[in-house]
């Protein structure tokens, strides 16, 4: 099944989100936006568009051009990565108020995973154009969004750093080397 993102990368696809109490509350329930003022939440809501997906329908596929951020309003979605042997591995599940695909919003690049609806789902999408509007109308909301992207990227980066180190250790061990003493200053937890 072709993803709509690939079929039509048009930011006007989907339905506009009216700044209703119900819609605003979905955003307020999302921790990065919880502390925004009412006016900023309304501006944020107005910059998103909504889209519904049937079970197994892809939101986007690995390799698609990406320029949007998504938030789950309803339902459950699955992120999976296709490996070189063509096997697909599930890497994450997203439920209501969770955000995904955020990096492409600021730095467009091919999607690194496929996201598919596991149940009938409603997803809110913010395209790069919507972010430009948001910057003008609510700098505070734009700032909250960018902070979210940074936090997520740095968290993943640190996790990746650990994996790299682990791989290096394995490589060194396979050469029969004694563990080498670290010259690095004591590190904090979870870094």
């Amino acid at each position, binding site marked *: 099944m072709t993803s709509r993102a690939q079929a039509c990368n048009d930011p006007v696809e989907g339905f506009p989100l009216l700044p209703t109490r119900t819609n605003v509350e979905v955003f307020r329930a999302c921790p990065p936006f919880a502390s925004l003022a009412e006016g900023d939440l309304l501006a944020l809501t107005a910059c998103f568009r909504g889209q519904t997906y049937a079970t197994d329908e892809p939101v986007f596929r690995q390799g698609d051009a990406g320029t949007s951020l998504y938030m789950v309003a309803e339902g459950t979605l699955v992120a999976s990565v296709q490996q070189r042997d063509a096997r697909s591995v599930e890497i994450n599940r997203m439920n209501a108020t969770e955000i995904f695909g955020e990096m492409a919003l600021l730095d467009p690049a091919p999607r690194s995973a496929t996201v598919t609806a596991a149940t009938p789902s409603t997803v809110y999408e913010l395209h790069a154009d919507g972010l430009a509007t948001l910057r003008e109308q609510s700098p505070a909301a734009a700032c909250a969004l960018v902070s979210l992207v940074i936090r997520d*990227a740095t968290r993943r*980066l640190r996790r990746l*750093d650990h994996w790299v180190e682990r*791989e290096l250790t394995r*490589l060194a061990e*396979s050469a029969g080397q004694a563990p*080498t003493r670290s010259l690095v*200053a004591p590190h*904090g937890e979870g870094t």
Partner: protein
Amino acid sequence: MPGPTVPRMQELPAGTTFGRYAIVRRIGAGGMAAVYEAQHTHLGRRVALKILHPSYAVHAPSVERFVLEANAAARLQHPHVVDVFDVGVEDDVPFMVMEYLEGGDLGAILEQENSLTVERVCALMLPVVSAVSAAHRAGIVHRDLKPENIYVTLGLDGIEHPVLLDFGISKVARRGGEPNLSMAGELLGTPYYMAPEQIRADDKVDARSDQYSLGVIIYECVTGQRPYRAGDSVYVLMAEILSGQADPPSTINRSLSPDFEAVILRAMNAVRDDRFESMQSFGRALMPFASEATRTRWTHEFDPRPSEGKPASAPAVAATGRASRPSTIGRRTTRLATGAALGSQSVSVPPDDLRVLTALRESSPDELAMFALLAPARRYPKDALLFLQGTQGESCFMLLRGEVEIVKSMSFGDCVLNTLGPGSVVGQIALVDLAPRTASVIARTETVAIELTREVFDKLIATANRVALRFQEHIAISAIRQLRVATQQLTALLDERASLRARGTPDVDPSHAARLAYVQAATLEWDLALEANRRAPTPRILKREP
């Protein structure tokens, strides 16, 4: 008969006359000066003659520091501070005449005896605490207290008599905001005994820094070991000091009482505010552990007063089994203060110069002026440490002039990952993510940079400042790109391992490949310059372990 005139050479031979003094022998030499036993040619009095090395005699800051030492010591009249009789210039070479002491320094005693009893340590250190306390009352912070600067002579009564030496890098409180020598941009002090604030920010050094150094000396006296003793790299040593994670002395000397250990750990607490409030309080805390004779001698100065008899405490020890913890609870890291680099100085730059930074390129003059006001530029001397790997950062550095090196310490040595110049920003992730720095940044040349602290950044963000928002997006984009590169790198590593496994016995040295890969990964990780036209980094290994 007068001896030959003073030759311009490093060591003066015996018999040489220097002004009114005849050289007997050299008794010590440091980086900047040599000390000789000498005799007054008319009075016959034996003295210690300290002479600034001729090559420093033409270096105005060195001369000024030398004179400062003489003046500082001369201002102090204390039985446990070396007496200065004379100071002057002979044949363009500054000199200082001090009392001649017979004995040896505490460093030599420790080398010979390894460790000392608690009572002996108290007998030696209470006089030193008294001397340092007198210096503090005179507005002088010594800043280089170490065993070698505590000379121990034997009194007529056979009792050891310590004398404090070397106020060469002391900081004298000045009026009128004159530039202080401490801003000269040099690494002043002996790293092993340096307080964390001396490593972080020279202008924050105060009397409590001396207390820290004395705490370290006492630690060494009772254990025979320095609390921080990394020998591979001065940066690693400094990182250890900043971490405040020394082993409690009782883990080395099990006979130490918990109360005495608490006194040591409180004095050398990485958090300055958690140390004793004064040298007087420190001295009073040591008194209960001194012999009766020592207590009798020092009761007049360190008489315990109930109101100030706050018991020494080291709450972190119980919780962690380690020495003092920094203020960032729950993390084994230390905050770096604003103006983290040693010896940096405020510098005024034209607002237009800020346009070298991408985030500020399109800013209005008003925005630039406001930014310059909130985040002033500083000049960092060559080799200044902007921040240290493993320490918790709370600021980023935006480079306006000069070049910095990104140095990552790894298991096989220190490696220069990249060199960045004007327009680059380093350490920006720290503005949004509280975590230790993943590499050190050192000024390769004299560098001018804006240090944007998290506090200022948050304020700017809170007001939805346009510059801050632009900068925030730059941070996000750099983090995303960093992540993508790291992902590619990890994929390459996994492939490499799979390939080695498939081949059975690897025909390449995998550890070598791994190291190269890691260097490359780390390089890319740190290639965070926000400029489009940046040079491809070339990793350079600084040193290897033997």
